[in-house]
C-alpha cells in the first residue's frame, strides 16, 4: 500500500493515532479498497476503536497488487508510531506532506514526512502481520440512539476529573444524565459526586427504546471526543441495556471513527440516581465482554474467517463472545445468548446508518 496525505490531513491522521493510543498498546493498519482503517483494542478486549479513512481523505491512495486477494493487517506498537505524531502543533507548522508505504516483503512500514525547508524525515517501522481483529456491532438493533452536537459530550465530560475511570450514562424519556461511577463503598467522604442532566432537546437525535443506565470507561472515550471536537463532528451513541456494549461514533464524507466499549452488568433494576452501593452486589470484577480472550490461535483464525466472510462497507462492530465455556453464570455481552434476537448471532452484520441520523 502506498498513500500520501497532505496538509491538514496529516494532523487529522495524527489526532486519530492519539485517540487510538488511549485504547490499546498496539495499532493495526488495515489497508482496504474502501480506505485505510486504523484499529486498536485494549488488552482486556473491553474497548475497541476504529478510524476508517476513505480514499478521498488521501491525496493519493494505492493498494499494491498483493492487497487484491488478501488483507494484510500490520500490527505496530503504539509506542513506535505515536512519537512520530506526538506534537501535532509542530506537524501543522512544518509538515507539508506525509507518505505511508507498507512493504510486506521486508516487514516495514515506511512513513515519510516532507517538511518545510526541504527537510525530510523517514521512519522505517517494523510491523507484524496480524489477524484482523474487528468488533462487529449491530447498531441498528440498539434500542437507544443519541446524536449529540460536536461539543456537547466533550463539554459534559470536562466536568469529570481526568482520573475518573468510569461514568454512568442514564437515559429516560425525560432526560439523559451522566454521573461518575465508583466501585467499593469505602471512600464516601472523599469522593466528589458529579451528575449532570440534559434534556432530550439538546440532542440532534433522541431515540429511547429502553430506559437504562450504562457504566463504561471514560478514559477510553476521551480520545474520540477530542477528535470529534477538533473536527466539529456530531457524535452518535448507540446502546441498550446495561451489560451490552455502547458505540460512540463520528463520520463525515471522508472518514469515520467509532469506539465500542463494554458496559458493566447490573443485575439490579435501577432508577436514575441509584446510590453506588447497590452496584457492589454485581461481581466485584465487572464482567466485560472479552475478559474472555481467545486462548488458541486456531480460534482466532476461525473468527477471522467468519469475520471476513460477507463483509461490507462502513463500520461493523460487535463484540463476539470468544469462549462460551469460560465462567458459567457469567453473562456474555453479545450474541450466543438465547434470550436475544437470533439475528445478533449472525455476526457479520454491517451497521447501516439510518438516514435520519
Amino acid at each position, binding site marked *: 500500500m502506498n498513500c500520501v496525505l497532505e496538509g491538514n490531513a496529516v494532523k487529522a491522521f495524527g489526532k486519530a493515532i492519539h485517540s487510538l493510543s488511549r485504547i490499546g498498546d498496539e495499532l493495526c493498519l488495515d489497508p482496504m479498497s474502501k480506505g485505510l482503517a486504523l484499529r486498536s483494542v485494549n488488552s482486556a478486549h473491553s474497548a475497541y476503536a476504529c478510524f476508517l479513512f476513505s480514499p478521498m481523505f488521501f491525496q493519493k491512495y494505492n493498494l499494491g497488487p498483493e492487497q487484491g486477494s488478501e488483507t494484510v493487517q500490520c500490527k505496530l506498537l503504539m509506542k513506535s508510531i505515536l512519537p512520530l505524531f506526538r506534537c501535532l502543533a509542530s506537524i501543522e507548522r512544518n509538515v507539508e506532506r506525509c507518505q505511508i508505504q507498507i512493504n510486506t516483503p521486508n516487514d516495514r512500514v515506511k512513513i515519510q514526512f516532507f517538511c518545510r525547508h526541504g527537510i525530510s*524525515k523517514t521512519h*522505517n517501522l517494523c510491523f507484524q502481520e496480524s489477524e484482523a481483529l474487528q468488533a462487529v456491532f449491530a447498531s441498528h438493533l440498539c434500542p437507544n440512539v443519541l446524536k449529540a452536537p460536536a461539543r456537547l459530550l466533550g463539554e459534559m465530560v470536562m466536568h469529570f476529573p481526568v482520573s475518573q475511570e468510569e461514568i454512568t450514562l442514564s437515559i429516560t424519556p425525560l432526560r439523559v444524565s451522566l454521573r461518575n461511577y465508583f466501585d467499593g463503598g469505602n471512600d464516601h467522604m472523599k469522593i466528589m459526586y458529579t451528575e449532570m442532566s440534559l434534556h432530550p432537546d439538546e440532542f440532534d437525535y433522541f431515540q429511547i427504546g429502553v430506559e437504562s443506565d450504562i457504566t463504561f470507561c471514560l478514559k477510553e472515550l476521551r480520545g474520540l471526543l477530542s477528535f470529534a471536537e477538533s473536527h466539529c463532528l456530531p457524535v452518535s451513541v448507540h446502546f441498550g441495556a446495561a451489560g451490552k456494549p455502547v458505540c460512540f461514533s463520528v463520520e463525515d464524507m471522508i472518514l469515520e471513527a467509532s469506539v465500542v466499549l463494554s458496559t458493566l452488568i447490573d443485575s439490579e433494576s435501577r432508577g436514575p440516581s441509584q446510590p453506588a452501593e447497590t452496584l457492589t452486589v454485581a461481581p466485584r470484577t465487572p464482567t466485560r465482554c472479552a475478559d474472555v480472550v481467545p486462548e488458541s490461535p486456531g480460534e482466532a483464525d476461525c473468527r477471522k474467517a467468519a469475520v471476513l466472510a460477507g463483509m461490507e462497507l462502513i463500520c461493523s462492530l460487535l463484540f463476539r463472545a470468544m469462549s462460551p465455556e469460560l465462567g458459567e453464570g457469567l453473562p456474555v455481552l453479545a450474541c450466543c445468548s438465547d434470550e436475544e434476537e437470533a439475528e445478533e448471532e449472525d455476526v457479520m452484520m454491517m451497521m447501516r446508518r439510518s438516514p435520519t441520523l
Partner: protein
Amino acid sequence: MPLSTQSQGDAEQYVLVASLDNARNLSNILKAITFKDYAIFSATPNGLKVTVEDSKCLQANAFIQSEIFQEYTIKEDSVGFQVNLTVLLDCLNIFGGTTAPGVSTALRMCYKGYGYPLTLFLEEGGVVTVCKINTQEPEEPVDFEFCSTNVTNKVILQSESLKEAFSELDMTSEVLEITMSPSQPYFRLSTFGNSGSAHYDYPKDSDMMELFKCTKTQTNRYKMSLLKPSTKALALSCKVSVRTDSRGFLSLQYLVRNDDGQICFVEYYCCPDEEVAED
C-alpha cells in the same frame, strides 16, 4: 557598588577577577555543557574557557571572551583550575532561577591562584552572598587534534531546523549516525532503535543550510549517550556548524547569543564509535 567595595582591600591578591552585571550570561552557557560534575577552567587574557569531558571520548568547551565581562583582569598568561560545575551553577543561581525582568544577579568571580578557592560575590537587590568553592588541580584536557586542514566535510545549519530533530531522536538507538556527502542525501542523521530506523535529511539547497562544503561521502556513528548532552547547547544556539575530519571525529560548534545579544561559542568534540564506516 557593594561588590567592588568589598574586595577593594585584597584586589592585588587575585590573579583573576571577572565581573558580570548579569550572572546569567555565564550560567546559561555553562548549563549547555553540564553533563559531568567537574569542569576545567582555563583563563587567558582572551577570555574564559570551560571544559567538560566524558570518558576521553567527548569534550565540550564553552568560550566566554573577555569582552563579555564588565571587568576582566588577569595577572598571568594562563590561569587554570578545576571546580565542581554543579556547585558553581547552584551558587550562580543562589538568588533563585527566575527573576523579574530588569532584575539580575551581579557576579564578581575572583581567584587568588593555586590552592585557593574560587570566590564568588553575588548581589541582587542589595543582598550580597559570598561563595567559596574549593578548586582542584586541573586535569589536562584531551587534545582531539581536530584541525581545519583535516576537515573533510562541513555544514552550517540554522539551529531551528536541528532542534526538532534532536528532540525527536529515538533514544532506544545506541548510536547516532551522521552521513555527509556531496551527493544525495547530503546531510543525514540516522537512528536505529527498537522500533526501526529513522532518517532526517537536510538537502544542500535547503534555506536552513547556510554553508555546505562536503568533499567526500562519509558515514560515521557516534554513541547516542555521548551526543545527547549537546542538545542543551543546540537549544541555546542560533547556528551550528558540523564538521568531520578524515578520521571521522566530529566537531559541533554552536553560536550562542546571551541575554545582551553578545556572542559566545560552545563546541563539542566526539570520537566515532568503534566501527567507522567510510564509503
